[in-house]
């Protein structure tokens, strides 16, 4: 029997949350991927570079989490066990580099929830969109992720 999920959260906007980017987290993230670019890791090289400091790798905003807007909360709201989810799609748009020491505001909404039959049975697709703005209220990055739920 496929499980039922709570689709009522489609369109929900979560409380905006602030994230301050730590220098060490940028480096830890780049090293975890095995991307050893000096523009992520080397303060001296990066200081002489175009941004005057290290910047974050393109997928770093995925680390912008908050307990009032994270996957654990989403799963509780959907009524889904974590063992049922897979990452279906992910997209980033970048407008300004993400820098250490900066505080960003993240706004997350559930853009869509839909169900369809997959190869291995019925699936639900939950699309989350996050807008990341800086202290000038400029959009720095947009994220759009699709989580697949095995029903």
């Amino acid at each position, binding site marked *: 029997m496929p499980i039922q999920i709570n689709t009522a959260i489609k369109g929900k906007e979560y409380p905006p949350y602030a994230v301050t980017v730590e220098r060490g*987290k940028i480096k*830890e*993230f780049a*090293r*975890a*991927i*095995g*991307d050893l*670019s*000096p*523009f*992520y890791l080397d303060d001296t*090289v990066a200081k002489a*570079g*175009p*941004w005057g400091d290290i*910047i974050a*790798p*393109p*997928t770093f905003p*995925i*680390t912008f*989490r908050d307990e009032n807007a994270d*996957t654990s909360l989403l799963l509780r709201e959907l009524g889904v*066990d*974590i*063992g*049922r*989810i*897979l*990452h*279906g*799609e*992910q*997209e*980033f*748009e*970048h*407008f300004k*580099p993400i820098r250490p020491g900066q505080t960003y505001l993240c706004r997350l909404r559930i853009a869509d929830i839909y169900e369809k039959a997959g190869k291995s049975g019925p699936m639900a697709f939950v699309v989350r969109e996050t807008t990341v703005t800086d202290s000038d209220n400029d959009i720095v990055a947009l994220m*759009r992720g699709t989580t697949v739920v*095995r029903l």
Partner: protein
Amino acid sequence: MKYAKLYAEDIQVGSEMPPLVKPPIQQIQLTRYAGASGDFNPIHQDAAFAKAAGMGDVFAHGMLSMGFVAQSVTDWLGAGSVRKLGVRFAALVRLGDVVTCKGRVLAVRPPKNGDGLSLVDLELWAENQKGEKIITGKATAALPSRA
């Protein structure tokens, strides 16, 4: 080191990105990525959990593979060059798998914002050691001109 490794004039439609071959996936890398990213889903760490969930064994975070794909672009076109990156996760990456990221240029668009940066559209994909696609996607990167 300069901002980008290449200039817009160095790129033509159909140009192939140099493949990026990553080391075999090890459990320690998944644990490290969990800590770095904050994604502690036990399905990437705990074989018994993954098996009970019907997935057979642990598998890599999709975002780790997407990080590899992002690296393949920035290794070629420069850190800070990526304006857009979108992927579909096509197959699971398992322990021991060797991921190779590949791509080719779909379009080169001349500067129009007054920032002097051309936009390079790429088709991207990543394969495992059996040649199966584990990611398909697209990216747009901004490149300065030589002039």
